[in-house]
C-alpha cells in the first residue's frame, strides 16, 4: 500500500540543489538519465527530432513560406556548408573573445567569492554591487566601451568578463557559504592549517556550486559576446548576424544561429560532464 502510493507521487528526478544559486543545477537531472537510457527511449528521442525538423521542412514547403521569412532546415544546412569558409574565422573570433573574457571574469569572480565568504561583514557590503552587475545587462556598456577602446576586441572582452564574473562569483559564494562545521572540525582535529581546510574541505564542498557558476557564467558570456559583436564589432558571429540579416540572406543567418546553439549546448554538456566527474558525490 505504502510503496504503491509512493510510485504515484511525481518526483523531479534528482534531489534539488540546496540553496539554489542561479538555479540551473536542477537542469542537470535532465541529462542525468543519459547513463541508463534504453534503446526504446533513444528511438523516441531521435523520432521526435526527426518529426520536428522534417515537419518544419514539410510545413514550410506546403505553405510556401518565403525564404526571407523562414528558410527550410535543408536550406539552413546547405548554407552552413557552403558559407562555412566565410563563417569559421568569425567563429574563431567569437570563441577567443568568449574564452579570454570568461577566464578573466571567472578568475576574479572565483577569488572574490572565496575571499569574501570568509568575512561575513565584507560580504554584506559587496553583495549589492555584485547583484547590480548580475542584473544589469553588460551589453548596455558596450557603446560606452567602444568610445573609449574603439571597435577592437577590448570592449567585447571587458563586457564578457563583466557578464560572466559576477555569475561565477554569486554561485561560488553560495557554495563557499555552505560550511559544515563538523567537517572543518574533523580536519582541524588532525592538525589541518587554514589553507588545508580551504583546499581539502571548503573547495570540494563548494565544487558543485562552483561548476554551476562556471556554466552559467560561460553561457551568459556567450550571450554577451554575440550581443557585443552585434552592437559594436567588425567581426565575430554577432557581426555576421547583422550582416546576413541586412542582406536578407536568411539561410546563412540561421546557419549562424545554429552554430551559436551548438556552442551553447556544448557548454552545457561539457559542464554536465565535469559535474559528473568532479562533483558526483552530491547527485
Amino acid at each position, binding site marked *: 500500500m505504502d510503496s504503491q502510493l509512493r510510485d504515484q507521487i511525481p518526483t523531479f528526478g534528482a534531489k534539488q540543489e540546496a540553496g539554489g544559486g542561479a538555479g540551473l543545477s536542477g537542469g542537470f537531472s535532465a541529462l542525468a538519465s543519459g547513463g541508463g537510457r534504453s534503446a526504446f527511449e533513444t528511438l523516441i528521442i531521435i523520432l521526435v527530432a526527426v518529426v520536428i525538423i522534417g515537419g518544419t521542412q514539410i510545413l514550410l514547403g506546403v505553405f510556401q513560406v518565403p525564404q526571407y521569412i523562414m528558410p527550410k532546415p535543408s536550406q539552413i544546412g546547405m548554407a552552413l556548408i557552403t558559407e562555412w569558409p566565410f563563417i569559421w574565422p568569425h567563429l574563431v573570433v567569437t570563441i577567443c573573445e568568449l574564452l579570454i573574457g570568461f577566464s578573466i571574469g571567472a578568475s576574479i569572480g572565483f577569488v572574490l567569492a572565496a575571499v569574501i565568504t570568509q568575512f561575513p561583514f565584507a560580504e554584506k557590503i559587496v553583495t549589492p554591487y555584485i547583484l547590480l552587475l548580475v542584473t544589469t545587462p553588460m551589453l548596455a556598456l558596450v557603446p560606452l566601451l567602444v568610445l573609449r577602446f574603439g571597435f577592437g576586441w577590448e570592449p567585447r572582452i571587458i563586457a564578457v568578463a563583466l557578464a560572466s564574473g559576477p555569475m561565477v562569483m554569486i554561485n561560488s559564494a553560495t557554495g563557499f557559504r555552505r560550511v559544515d562545521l563538523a567537517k572543518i572540525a*574533523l580536519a582541524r582535529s*588532525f592538525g589541518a592549517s587554514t589553507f*588545508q581546510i580551504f583546499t581539502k574541505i571548503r573547495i570540494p564542498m563548494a565544487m558543485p556550486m562552483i561548476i554551476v557558476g562556471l556554466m552559467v557564467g560561460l553561457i551568459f558570456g556567450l550571450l554577451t559576446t554575440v550581443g557585443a559583436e552585434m552592437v559594436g564589432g567588425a567581426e565575430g558571429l554577432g557581426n555576421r548576424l547583422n550582416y546576413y540579416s541586412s542582406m536578407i540572406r536568411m539561410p546563412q543567418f540561421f546557419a549562424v544561429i545554429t552554430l551559436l546553439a551548438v556552442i551553447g549546448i556544448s557548454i552545457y554538456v561539457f559542464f554536465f560532464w565535469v559535474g559528473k566527474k568532479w562533483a558526483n*558525490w552530491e547527485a
Partner: protein
Amino acid sequence: MNAIGALGSARADVSAPAKMVVEGASKFYQARSGVVHALDNVSLEVREGEFLCILGPSGCGKSTLLWSMAGLHGLSGGRIRLGQEPIVKPHPEIAMIFQEANLLPWRNLEKNIELPFELKRIPPDKARIQALLERVGLKGFETKMPRELSGGMQQRASIVRSLAVNPSVLLMDEPFGALDAFTRDEMNLLIQEIWMETRKTIIFITHSIVEALFLADRIVVMSARPGRIQEIVEVDLPRPRGVEVQSTPEFIERVNAIKAMIDHRRA
C-alpha cells in the same frame, strides 16, 4: 566515590597514571538567546588506558567538554592537560570520532582514511590501514564512496581513519547515536574489542545509560545547565562483556540506579 554501594568497588588499575586531566573547566559562550553557561568547574582525571564514558542529558555540556579536550575550542576558565602538556589546540596524540561518521562525501573510503596523513603531510601507513580495515570488516570496500556504505560501515571507516594515525587517546562524541539498535550493539562490541586489543585511552560521550554501562570502566554522570559533574560511577562488570549482559539483573539494577540519579537531580 559514589553513594550507591552496588556500583562502586575498586578496580585493579585505579593506580594507573592520569593520562588526561581536566582542572576546573568552565565555558561560557554567546548564543542568540544570551550567554550560555555550558560548563561549570568540571574537574576530571582520565587514567591511562581507561574506557571512560561521559553520560548526560542533551545540553549538559558533555560535547563542549569533549571538544575542549580535543583542543577544538578553548575554555573560559580552567585548563586541560595531556600528561604535562596543556591542550590548547589539536594534539597529534588525540584523535576524535564524531557524531555520524563525518566522512567526506567526495572521497572514497580509502581517500577518506588517508586524509589525516595528507593533512599531516606524511605518507599513509598502508600496512596499518589494511590491517585495520580487515579488523573492522571493511576490506574490499576501499573504492566505495561513503554514500554507498551503510551507517555502521561509515562509522567503522571513521574509526579506522582515527586509529590509522595511532593516537593514544580516542575521543568519541556520541559516535553511534544515529545508528539503529542492532548496529549500535555491533559497534559497541567492536569498540570494546578494539579497546581491549589496543588499550587506548577512550573518552566516550553518550546519552544512553545502557551504552555507557556496557562500555565503560567509569561513568561520569553530568547534569545540565550549567554542565557539572554530578557523580562518577565505577563499573565493575567483568570483560569482555557480551550483549546478553544487558539483560542480567545486575546490569538492570545499575541502569536503574543511574537513571534515579539523573531523574532525581533534574526534578
